[in-house]
């Protein structure tokens, strides 16, 4: 008898980009860990995002054209923008670079994710949602980031279910007239009290609740082994 399974990625079903998406949703991912960058890139590419990864806040600022120093020649950074004091004609575009979402690690050598957040929110990129990620669940850190304008705070390690929390942002920034707050997403039942739900700037920690139906589909089922 034939053994059927390959590891099919179930999340394609769960994370179809919205129909109206004309071009790729572009995420700038900032993390000093090569493992976390790889994981994040895979998670985001799996939901049809274009991903640019940089390994520091400095490189992120350079990518966004927010520093004057253009001496850096690393290939991971695009340097075609120059820092400009006047606002760009379109809110999400600056000399050809479009970023729909910034996801940054909190704890990085040099510039922290919080510092990066502040710089971004004080710049012409201030309307781009910023998501902070951290391996440490520190309530004061979380509220500090939210107060500074972070849209979400995700606990590492990132999982497939975390992408659900980002779905509203995928839609929101593509539809300028959309005014809905991101809906609370359900929590994957394997997360044992380490998930923060952000709702109107208040933080509530929720225990595992019953997952939405589409979570079930994301769990691959083990088929019976055929024993010959």
């Amino acid at each position, binding site marked *: 008898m034939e*053994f*059927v*399974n*390959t*590891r*099919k*990625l*179930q*999340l394609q079903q769960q994370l179809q980009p919205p129909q109206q998406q004309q071009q790729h949703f572009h995420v700038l991912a900032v993390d*000093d*860990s*090569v*493992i*976390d960058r*790889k*994981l994040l890139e*895979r*998670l985001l590419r*799996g939901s049809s995002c274009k991903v640019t990864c940089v390994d520091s806040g400095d490189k992120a600022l350079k990518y966004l054209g927010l520093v004057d120093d253009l001496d850096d020649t690393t290939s991971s950074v695009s340097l075609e923008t120059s820092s400009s004091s006047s606002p760009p004609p379109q809110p999400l575009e600056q000399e050809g670079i479009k970023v729909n979402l910034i996801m940054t690690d909190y*704890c990085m*050598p040099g510039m922290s994710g919080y510092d990066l957040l502040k710089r971004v929110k004080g710049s012409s990129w201030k309307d781009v949602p910023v998501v902070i990620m951290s*391996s440490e669940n520190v309530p004061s850190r979380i509220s500090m980031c939210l107060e500074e304008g972070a849209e979400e705070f995700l606990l*590492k*390690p*990132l*999982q*497939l279910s975390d992408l659900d929390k980002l779905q509203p942002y995928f839609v929101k920034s593509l539809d300028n007239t959309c005014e809905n707050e991101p809906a609370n997403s359900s929590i994957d039942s*394997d997360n044992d009290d380490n998930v923060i739900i952000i709702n109107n700037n208040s933080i509530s920690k929720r225990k595992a609740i019953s997952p939405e139906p589409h979570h079930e589909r*994301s*769990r*691959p*089922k*083990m*088929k019976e*082994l*055929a*024993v*010959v």
Partner: protein
Amino acid sequence: MEVGQMQRQWLDYTRSLFLEGFLDAQFMQLQQLQDENNPDFVVEVVSLFFQDSERLLKDLTFALDQNAVDFKKVDAHVHQLKGSSSSIGAQRVKNACIDFRNFCEEQNIDACLRCLQQVKEEYCLVKNKLETLFRLEQQIVAVGGSIPLVEPTQMSF
């Protein structure tokens, strides 16, 4: 050995790694991210983890060998190792790092050296286990079989 047996062996081995705490649910997340478009995802991420860890362990050994130990630096390295082991689901390495950080805070050199030894041992163990797992996978794929999908409930933890 035919494919069904190899797959059974793979499942048993994987199950044991979870039961013995070498791997946790995060490793399953990695497995779920592997598909036709990313057929070697798990091996790729784990290989990055091996490289990164070896660098960090070297740096830690060096840092603790200094006359005046810079505990902030030691802690920073351990924090990184804790993060990466957590990201791939290497639970015992992660837990060893958590203990390690506590002793960094206390600035207790002897305890830190013991922790470093512990982390190194756990790292070697999980490295061997994962390499064995990957070899089993290669054998299955080589005979045209496919790697089983696993569900958390099947892993009995």
